[in-house]
């Protein structure tokens, strides 16, 4: 599983950071920063949840 973050779409609501702090962080301007684009098995389910929660649809899961 690989996650993609579109920083142009992100509005900095911070929900992903709250949901999986091990995968998502925010930059100085509040915009999403991926700590890893390949969450491990332990965090994958929560990362998927974070993707569905994103209000601006800035997060997506890439098919590999």
């Amino acid at each position, binding site marked *: 599983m690989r996650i993609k973050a579109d920083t*142009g*779409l*992100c509005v900095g609501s911070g929900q992903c950071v709250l949901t999986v702090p091990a995968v998502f962080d*925010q930059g*100085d*301007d*509040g915009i999403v920063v991926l700590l890893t684009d390949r969450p491990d098995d332990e965090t994958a389910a929560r990362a998927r949840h974070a993707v569905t929660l994103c*209000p*601006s649809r800035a997060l997506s899961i890439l098919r590999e």
Partner: protein
Amino acid sequence: MKHRIVVLGAGYAGAYVAGNLARRLSRADTEITVVNAVPYFVQRMRMHQLVAGQDVKAPQLADVFANTGIRLCLDRVTALDPERQVATVANGGELGYDTLVYALGSQGADHGVPGVAEHAFDVAARPSALRLRERLDTLDRRREGGNVVVVGDGWTGIETATEIAESRPGLSVTLVARGELGARLAAGARRHLRRACDRLGVTVVEHTSVEAVEATRVLCSDGTALASDATAWTAGFAVSPIAAAAGLEVTRNGQVVVDRTMRSVSHPNVYAIGDSVCAVGDNGRPLPMSCASAGYTGNQAIQAIVARLTGREVTRTKLVYTYNHISLGRRDGILQTFDDRGQPKPKYEGGWKPARVKEGIIKTALWSTSHPTFGLPRRRRHLATVPGLSAENAVV
């Protein structure tokens, strides 16, 4: 003197932008004031749930902005003078600004249909939604049933009709659509919607426009009359007339005309966001009035205001319209995606999953607007320009 930023309106757009500006600009040289007519935050996306009888939180704005340094002015904006850079409120007070964020949003509009103002309820504001709820409570209590007519099959009309039907099974709900039901949806999603209306017992009246609303009936253009004990009017929304009256350049429907950074083309120290702006999306079409557009236009305005005041380059954020989640009661919903031309894509998702996602998004929207001090940045930026200098003269 500090640089004065005044934000008119604290809906999804205004509250979000005010909180983020407070997070990112130094309190030593900026002063942010938010003006709102009511003391609470309105969860506009949940007004149909309020009508249906559910508990919908309305956080106090004083709590929302506590410890942010934001000054809250609870009063109705009555006028704007962009030449003097002053906003006037109902008690006669004046608020001077160096940068104005115009976010007065939209309200229900009758579009000249007689009787709507007197006899129908809109669900665009909390007081009118609560009045409709009281009426429905009264109908429910008398246990003889009652007819509820929802006029308009935009997303608000669809959500209102299905929510009332699910929560108040003792009432008969009719949904009046000007064309085919859910015309903005793709064929599959339209069928899903129709099945949901059947399941919930919503009577659908299509290809019908409403000519007048009376106390106990709704008159249609084909001469028929629909019996109605309560009429919900969702067939029109209009923006606040204040921008047009102030002489800002506006579109025919009164939305503020802006450049790509949400800056008024006629008054460069005014930014407009949310429903009250005509923002041309990346596909060349105006963004629809919605909470999602409030996020995208708000985000662009935040980037532009902070960049211009702190002497950095303005980054372009994306302005898109890609999807709508439409709830059909609490357990069903539709996710409809749209292509670059704003046309619905054939593929859609229907059922409990989009309903749950929509619930998550609304929670997220409330959480992020009502916790403006959460998160980054840890550093607030100082202004690059002399405080008090208007944005049009600022280093760009």
